[in-house]
């Protein structure tokens, strides 16, 4: 199967005229590919990591292709309707009110039931995946680079620069993340945009601390000193010799944080500082469902479960990656499984 895929890919690239280039590139990066393969193999051996990876992938797919999936289901529904198999015309739409019965129970046509306006909850939760995905991708990709940069500078130069950056970081870290994010979001005015800005502002300090700690030990490596002794510039040493050697804990933390961002964003919406109705945001849906918890428990429980599963998936994946990205631990996994 795998060989067939690889052959097919090669064929395709050949036809496109990139075959030789691709193979050359692969030859040059031989070590990298081997490493990836090893990591993939080790990851596959851990059932928890596999489950986490599956959940994360599902989250991404639902987040990216949510509307397409809905359209597909709607197409199916209209086909069934035109064939006379189902009686009513149903369109799953996160915003359409009275699409189904108010607070309707989960059923075949409305798998997650309906809310108090008769909006289909399946469509709302599915669209909510996209909101969460956008928030976490934006927060992670905007929050981490400054954290890495400041951490590198702080750890590498030390002294007064270090002292200044770390004290500022301490100020940010002194507040619990949620409290600080609440304060910022509240001062910016409730809304999805202010939730994203608030979370981004809250996010970088933990990376400063992580990266700085790693740099402090990495810069003691003899090869860093050797690089300085042959006249390599500080910037180049930081970017080329220190950063790649400390990046794996950053990748692990970023993976774990994907889940945390989803939770915090849901929390902000839950208390009314994040996404505003009618945006189908998971935390918001949970909050809206609270009033009907006795009559329609699924209303809150299903979006809550979505948050929970997403966070769990990224945490399991992050734990798996931590083991896999460290060659020493990976060897022990390979050894323990007896399939070296």
């Amino acid at each position, binding site marked *: 199967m795998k060989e067939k895929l690889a052959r097919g890919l090669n064929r395709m690239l050949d036809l496109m005229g990139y075959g030789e280039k691709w193979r050359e590139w692969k030859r040059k990066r031989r070590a990298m590919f081997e490493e990836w393969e090893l990591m993939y193999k080790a990851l596959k051996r851990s059932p928890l990591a596999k489950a986490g990876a599956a959940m994360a992938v599902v989250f991404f797919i639902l987040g990216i292709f949510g509307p397409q999936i809905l359209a597909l289901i709607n197409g199916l529904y209209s086909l069934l309707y035109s064939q006379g198999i189902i009686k009513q015309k149903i369109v799953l739409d996160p915003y359409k009110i009275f699409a189904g019965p108010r607070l309707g129970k989960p059923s075949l046509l409305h798998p997650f039931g309906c809310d108090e306006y008769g909006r289909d909850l399946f469509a709302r939760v599915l669209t909510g995946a996209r909101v969460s995905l956008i928030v976490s991708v934006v927060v992670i990709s905007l929050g981490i680079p400054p954290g890495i940069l400041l951490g590198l500078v702080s750890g590498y130069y*030390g002294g007064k620069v270090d002292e200044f950056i770390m004290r500022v970081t301490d100020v940010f870290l002194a507040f619990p993340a949620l409290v600080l994010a609440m304060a910022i979001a509240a001062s910016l005015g409730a809304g999805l945009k202010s939730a994203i800005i608030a979370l981004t502002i809250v996010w970088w300090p933990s990376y400063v601390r992580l990266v700085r700690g790693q740099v402090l030990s990495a810069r003691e490596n*003899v090869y860093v000193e*050797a690089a*300085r*002794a*042959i006249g390599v510039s500080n910037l180049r040493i930081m970017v080329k*010799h220190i950063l790649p050697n400390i990046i794996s804990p950053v990748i692990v933390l970023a993976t774990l944080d994907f889940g945390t961002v989803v939770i915090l964003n849901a929390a902000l919406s839950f208390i009314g500082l994040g996404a505003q109705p009618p945006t189908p945001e998971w935390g918001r849906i949970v909050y809206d469902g609270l009033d009907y918890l006795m009559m329609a428990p699924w209303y809150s429980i299903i979006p809550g479960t979505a948050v929970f599963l997403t966070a769990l998936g990224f945490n399991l994946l992050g734990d798996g990656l931590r083991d896999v990205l460290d060659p020493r631990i990976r060897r022990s996994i390979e050894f323990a499984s007896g399939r070296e």
Partner: protein
Amino acid sequence: MSRRDEILRIEDLYVHFYTYAGVVKAIDGVNMSVLRGETYGLVGETGCGKSVTMRAVLRLIPPPGRIVKGRVIFNGVNLLELPEEEMRKIRGAKIAYIVQDPTAALDPLYTSGFQVAETILAHEENVGKKSVWERVVSLFKSVLIPDAERRVKQYPHEFSGGMRQRVVIACAISEKPELLIADEPTTSVDVTVQAQILEVLEDLKKTQEMTMILVTHNLGLVAQICDRVGVMYAGSIVEVSDVFRLFEEPLHPYTRGLLNAIPHVTRTQFRLEPIPGTIPDLINPPPGCRFHPRCKHATGICKREKPKLREIEPGRFVACHLYRGD
């Protein structure tokens, strides 16, 4: 010899490390001069400040260490007053430094060839990728790495200790430095490889007309390849001499002790004679001559006054009150 031939001159260098336990006076007034084209051996026991002195030359003292005062004059320029960017241009291009543990001196993430190329790229702009790569291959050949074309593409873990060391040497000589500082280049490899490495270094020195400073505690090595020797003890240089006279007739009591502690092939001798005592605590060094608590010849003045490095006979310097001119 006249001053004109000096390539490196260290004057009155003090380096202190500010630790929580106190100020470690690691380098305490080092004076040293290296002549162009010679091989200068810097010997002394572990912790006496050999490496720190050499790092001070390149301004690579790790914190909490600091150069307190002194001058390091290289080709007539005081390196300690240069701006950082100028200093960077000197490192690797004019003065190359081979770190103490060359086997760990290569970044595991890059091919060995890339790391040699990095030295070239750090000092030359507008060089073509191809020409750099060709130079790297020829550098590998010049340090006698067999199968150079294939080896440049390999990662450090694919090299043996001796081979890695050669890669490090290739890095150091890639810009044809005027001065090569080798900090214990042979401590981490076995004797056969040591011999090969030394051969490579001597060869390069001849073909490229480099000056070399060899930092070591191996007196055999010094006898083999050095022209002149400086003996260091507890942060200062106690004796400077050409290699023949040093071994024939050591002047400073510490040098004599060192030589007596080496087994001799021709002399029938059952016990070696160690130097009594241990190296002094550099936070609270003994007053006066730092060697006096271990010295057989110590007198009252040794405890009060630190002896200066003085020329006793042409080309021989010693810092000891035994050789006072009067």
